[in-house]
C-alpha cells in the first residue's frame, strides 16, 4: 500500500510542478492545488496504515491506527482551501487590472531602470 501511495504522491507532485511551470495563471493555481493534495496524501502515508483497525485506543484494543495524521490533514486542507480561494480571486482581479493571465508578461516593473 505504501508503494502505491508513494507513486500517487509522486505523480501529484510531478503534475503540480509541470503545471506551476506553465505560463497561464489558472494552470499555476491548479498546480498549487495538486501540490497541496500531494503533501496531504504524504502525511497520511507517513502516519502509517493500520488496515481495518480503529483510530482509537480503548480497553481490549491492542492494534490501532495513529489518529493524529488525520487531524493534521484536516487542518492543512482547510488552510490550502482558503489560500486557493484567495488566490483565484486575486488572479481574476489581476486579470481585470493587468489585462493578461500570462506570467511572462508580468515581470519587472514599468519604472524599472
Amino acid at each position, binding site marked *: 500500500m505504501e508503494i502505491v501511495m508513494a507513486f500517487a504522491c509522486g505523480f501529484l507532485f510531478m503534475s503540480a510542478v509541470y503545471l*506551476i511551470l506553465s505560463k497561464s*495563471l489558472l494552470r*499555476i493555481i491548479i498546480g*498549487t492545488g495538486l*501540490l*497541496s493534495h*500531494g*503533501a*496531504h496524501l*504524504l*502525511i497520511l*502515508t*507517513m*502516519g*502509517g496504515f493500520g488496515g481495518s483497525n480503529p483510530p482509537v485506543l480503548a480497553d481490549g484494543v491492542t492494534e490501532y491506527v495513529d489518529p*493524529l*495524521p488525520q487531524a*493534521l490533514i484536516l*487542518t*492543512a486542507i482547510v*488552510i*490550502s482551501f*482558503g*489560500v486557493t480561494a*484567495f*488566490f483565484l480571486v*486575486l*488572479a481574476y*482581479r*489581476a486579470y481585470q*487590472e*493587468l489585462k493578461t493571465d500570462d506570467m511572462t508578461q*508580468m515581470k*519587472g*516593473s*514599468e519604472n524599472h*531602470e
Partner: protein
Amino acid sequence: MNNFLLLPILIPFFFGMILLFGQKKLGYQRITTLLGLMISIICAFALMLNVNQNGPQIVTFGNWPVPFGITMVSDMVSALLVLTTLVLAFFIVWYGFGSIGKERERFFYYPGVMFIVTGVNGAFTTGDIFNLFVFFEVLLMASYLLIVLGGEKAQLRESIKYILINVISSALFVITVAYLYSVVGTLNMADISVKIAEINQPGIVTVIAVLFLMVFGMKAAIFPLYFWLPSAYAAPPIPVLALFGALLTKVGVYAIMRTYTLFFTHDLAYTHELLLILSILTIVAGSIGALAHFDVKQIIIYNIVIAVGVILFGVAQMNEAALEGAVFYLIHDMIIKAALFMLIGIIIYVTGTTNLRKMGGLMGNYPALGWFYLIAALGLAGVPPLSGFIGKLLIVQGGFQAGNVWTSIFILASSLVVLLSVIRIFIYAFWGEQGQLSSTMNKSTYNLLFFPTIGLVLVSILYGVGTEIIQPFMNEASKVLSDPSIYSDAVLKGGK
C-alpha cells in the same frame, strides 16, 4: 498552568476581530488599534519579566499531558521577540496614520496588521511544530491581505508571485513535518529534541534538517532562495514594507534558529557547516544588490538579506557567545530596519521619487531628518555605541572561538559594505545640489511621519546605549538556545 503567556497573541487577535466592525470610522479604527497594541505591549513586558524570574512559561491546551496536547512555550528568546514585535507594530501603525492613505484604512488595513501580529507572536511562542505551520499560515494570510491592499498594478503583479512562492514553501513545510513525524512520531518540539537525541540523528534526520532549512530559508530570504523578496517587498506602501521587512523574514530566521539549536544538534559538521556557507553567500548576494541599486527602497530591502546572513552566521557557530550575539543582532535588526524603512519613507514623501539620482540637498530644508538618518545608518552598520555593535561583536567573538577566523573577518568586512550602501543614500539625498521636491508635501503630514520615526530611532539608540541593562535577558536567551535540555526539561517536566 499559566495562561498569561497567551495574552500577547490573544489580545491582538481579539482587537483584530473588533476592528472588523466599524470599518469606515477612521478615528475608532486608529484609536482601537493603538489601544490594543499598547495593552499587548504591557502584557508582553510583564511576561518577559516573569520569564526572567521564573524560567520558561508553559501552557498545554486542554490540560492534556505534555507530548500529546499542543504546547505554547514562552522562553526568553520568544518573550523578547514578542515584545519587540509589538513595539514595532505600535510605531509602524502610528507612522501609517500619515502615509497609508484613507482608502486603505477603510478597507481592513488595521485588522490586517493585528492579525499579522497575532500570527507572528504565535509563531514565536508555539512549542509544537505543526502549530508553527498553522501560525505561519495565519501571518501569511494577513500578509496576503496587506501586500495586495490598494490594488495598484504593481501590487497585484507582485502579490501573485509572493503568494505562489509561499504556497509552495507551505506545501514543503507540510511535507517536511510529515517526514519528521514518521521518523520521531511526535510533534511537540521539546519531545522531538529528546527523541532525536535518543536516536542520535541518523542520516534521514539530517535530510529533514536541510528540508527545514529550505522551507524557513524561503521565508527568511537566505541565498539562493531570496530571489522573490526584492520585487515583492517593493510593491506595497512603506508602512506595510516596514512591517514585512522587520517581522516576516525574522520569523523565518527565528524558526531556523529554533530548529537548528533544538533539534539538529548532533551532526554539526554537516548541518551547521551548510548554514555557515549559505549565510556567507547570503551576505555576498545582499551586498551586491545593496550596492548595485539606485532605488532607495531596494537598497534597504537588500540590507534585510545581508542582516539575515549575519544572524544565521551567529547561529551556525553554535556557541554561547555567538548565539547571544545572534539574538542581540536579531532584535537590533528588527528595530533598525523598521526605523530605516520609515526614514526612507519620509525621504520618498518629501522628494516624490525613489530614485537616488534625482534627490539632493535635503540637508538644507530637513536637517533633523538628515541627522536621524545618519544615526540610524551608523547604527545599522554597527558603529559603537549604537545598537548594531554589540551583536556583531559577540557574533564575531563566537566565530573566532569556533575557529572560523576568515569568515568572521568577512563578517566584519561586510559591515563596511553595509555602511557604504546606506551612507550612499545619505550623500545623494542630503548633500549636493537641491534635487527634486514633491509638490504635494504638507507640514502636518510630515510631522505625523516624523515623530514615530524619531521615537523608533530613539528606541534603537537606547537599545545600543543600554546594552548593560538588556544583557542579562540576552544571556538568559542564549543559554536556552545553546543548551536544548533547558527547553525540553521545562516543557516535559515542568508542564502539567
